């Protein structure tokens, strides 16, 4: 074994984490963006007969007879 202990460079560790974090962050951003309609209030499918009704305040949709 070598007497000299060569420590891993913190810059190298940072680089390695950035390499994997950037694509993950991009994927996360895209997914959050796609999920936004869930929270935008437009969760209910607007029935054709009431096109002006505000989606967020609609009651049970046509597909849900309850």
């Amino acid at each position, binding site marked *: 074994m070598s007497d000299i202990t060569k420590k*891993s460079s913190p810059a190298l*560790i940072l680089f390695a984490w950035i390499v994997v974090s950037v694509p*993950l962050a991009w*994927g996360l951003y895209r*997914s959050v963006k796609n999920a936004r309609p869930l929270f935008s209030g437009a969760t209910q*499918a607007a029935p054709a007969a009431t096109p002006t009704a505000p989606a967020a305040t609609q009651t049970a*949709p046509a*597909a*849900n007879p309850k």
Partner: protein
Amino acid sequence: MPSFLDRENTIAEPGFSRWLVPPAALAVHMCIGEVYGFSVFNVPLTRIIGITQSVKGQDWTIPQVGWIYSTALIVLGLSAFVLGKWVERVGPRRTMFTSACCFCGGLVIASFGVAWHNFLVVWLGYGLVGGIGLGLGYIAPVSTLVKWFPDRPGMATGMAIMGFGGGALVGAPFGVELMNHFKSATSVGVQEAFLMMAACYFVMMNIGTTFVRVPAAGWVPEGYVPPAHAKKLVTTSNVTADEAIKVPQFWLLWAVLCLNVSAGIGILGQASLMCQDMFGVTAAVGAGFAGLLSIFNMAGRFVWSSLSDYTGRKAIYCVYFILGAVLYCLIPFTQRINSVAVFVAVTAVIISMYGGGFATVPAYLRDLFGTMQVGAIHGRLITAWSMAAVVGPQTINYISAYQKEHGVPKSEAYNMTMYIMAGLLLLGLLCNLLIKAVDPKHNFQAAPQGGNA
């Protein structure tokens, strides 16, 4: 093969930071996790001839294309099972490099298959050759991390397997962007997308190959003192892969994984449609819901698995099963009160525990069988996942279709399956409770020290 890939050349020198290993593992898992996003290619693959629409009798059909994905997943399990011991012998670097060659080579072959419109070539490339890459790439980084983090095995495996979950978040939009970029009047862009993905993933996976190391014999983290009194289920010995499959604990854990995954994958595969059927939301909102679940699937892998380092593996699985069963039973209630928000919250927690189940299992194996051949044992256990990938979605599909055919409103067609999923989880709880420490008679004698991954 160059000696750079040899296991002897991957043994870490003193001073090597173990924090370089998780990104190496993530780099591989994030790439092979692309398989979860394969569905974005389904429709384009059925329009290779017709481009704007599928030409009946000439273009491939959706069920045909589905076989490519199914084959890849089946081969993932089989290759992990068969090649697990080879992985232990040659070490993680050669395995990860082979995985990159198979996975990316498979994409290249599939690209040619698309160009020639030859289904067999696409199936062979993505399904068979790519599937081998999936199996090898799945187990090698996990077993390496377990050896680097004896103090936090749950967190370590959670980090790697989180990458596999995250692969879909990256792979699906990446595939869509590439197809949009390359599509033209004469091409749907799949052929070019496959080639570009092969190139990008090959680079990324080999960054992981370069960084990965195995700990030297006898290495322990700085300041780490193994607990004086070992926990009841945590062994300090090792059991070989061949011996492990002879003990009931392995098969109980196989059932635990299979049942936990069956329940979760049933929802994950049907998320968008279920949300639309139960609450009448638009397809765009349904797709957004599926995307949201993917985030929780990914996050759950890290969070729950890390938590298991404090609670113990058996206890955390009890939480997955008990809380999971309660939440499944709540889903019909969310439909009755017509609350999308509560439904989303409930399913998000369920899916996080599905991911957690995946990520916690290598640490559970390490507790029961030691680190010596944990990769090979993990490879054998993954067949439970292959089984669950068939059982879960088919159960939901079949029962909900049956209910709809028999006049049950679409919004209520999933209620029965939710109760069945809760039942599967309770069965899993029973299997988990039956797991005891492995009898020392199965231990490997004169077990080698560390430095093997």
